[in-house]
């Protein structure tokens, strides 16, 4: 299985991206479609990492890509397209998560505390994917996005810093801490088998 079906592992942007963007700007729907298709996987994984919930992530991915396409003429073709797009998408997802948090805080109350943590038996039955997603959800937001962009999407610390608007050193630290927690979970699962 390739972790990066739609992007080179080295993090290099596709060479023909600027031409594709120019065609899309000139009204070529096929070029627009190709551009969206290339980044659909990355965009949806990043929004899923930020939001957790599949439906919210899907809506945020669509909103984010659409926001980027609307201002496509502001994209600088001398720079890689991926970080530019993912910055807009990540911001859309983060905004949605904040709105959701405010909404949930208003709606939920004692209900959350009454529900409590999942019983161990139930937790054991969760598949690896569910447990990883649950573990991701426990991490601070920028840890989650940083580790997904670095280990899944193959972006460099500098590119992730550009996407998240933070210092490369902070990104490096976020990836380190996120990895440590997620690896511990993966190791536990291996030992259980």
């Amino acid at each position, binding site marked *: 299985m390739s972790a990066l079906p739609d992007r080179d592992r080295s993090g290099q942007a596709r060479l023909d991206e600027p031409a594709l963007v120019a065609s*899309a700007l000139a009204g070529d729907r096929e070029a627009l479609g190709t551009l969206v298709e290339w980044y659909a996987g990355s965009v*949806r*994984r990043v929004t*899923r990492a930020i939001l957790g919930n*599949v439906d919210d992530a899907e809506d945020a*991915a669509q909103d984010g890509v*659409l926001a980027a396409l*609307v201002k496509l003429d502001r994209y600088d073709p001398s720079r890689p397209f991926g970080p530019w797009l993912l910055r807009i998408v990540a911001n859309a997802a983060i905004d949605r998560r904040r709105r959701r948090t405010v909404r949930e805080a208003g709606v939920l109350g004692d209900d959350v505390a009454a529900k409590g943590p999942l019983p161990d038996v139930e937790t054991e039955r969760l598949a690896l994917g569910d447990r990883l997603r649950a573990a991701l959800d426990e991490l601070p937001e920028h840890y989650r996005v940083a580790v997904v962009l670095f280990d899944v999407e193959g972006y460099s610390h500098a590119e992730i810093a550009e996407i998240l608007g933070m210092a490369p050193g902070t990104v490096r630290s976020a990836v380190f801490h996120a990895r440590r927690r997620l690896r511990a979970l993966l190791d536990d699962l291996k030992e259980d088998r």
Partner: protein
Amino acid sequence: MRQEPMWSPDHPDPALGAALWAALSPRNDTAAFVTRVLDRAESAGVGTWRAVLGRWSRVAIAAAAVLAFVGGYLAGRARDAGTSFDAAWVTSATGSEAAVQLLATHRAPDPSALFASMLAN
């Protein structure tokens, strides 16, 4: 003894990356996602002839503003060049330097020049 994998903070971890990829990747419906985004983009006017025309009209307005500015500047310079020709003609025709200040300028005449001209004649 279990061997710990070698991993570097500067390189992606393939095992963790693959596990996260599997956990986060949506079901295989990329085509449907692309179609939904393109439909919404079309409704928003992305890539339509109106958007293309709108972008070009912004460029055209900027270009027209620059042309108007440059044209105004050049016209001003041409008018100044015309004034110096008139000044030479006035000097030769009247034989008076003071007359130039009265006849070959766009500014209001200086009273002292007017007085000097009257004295000269």
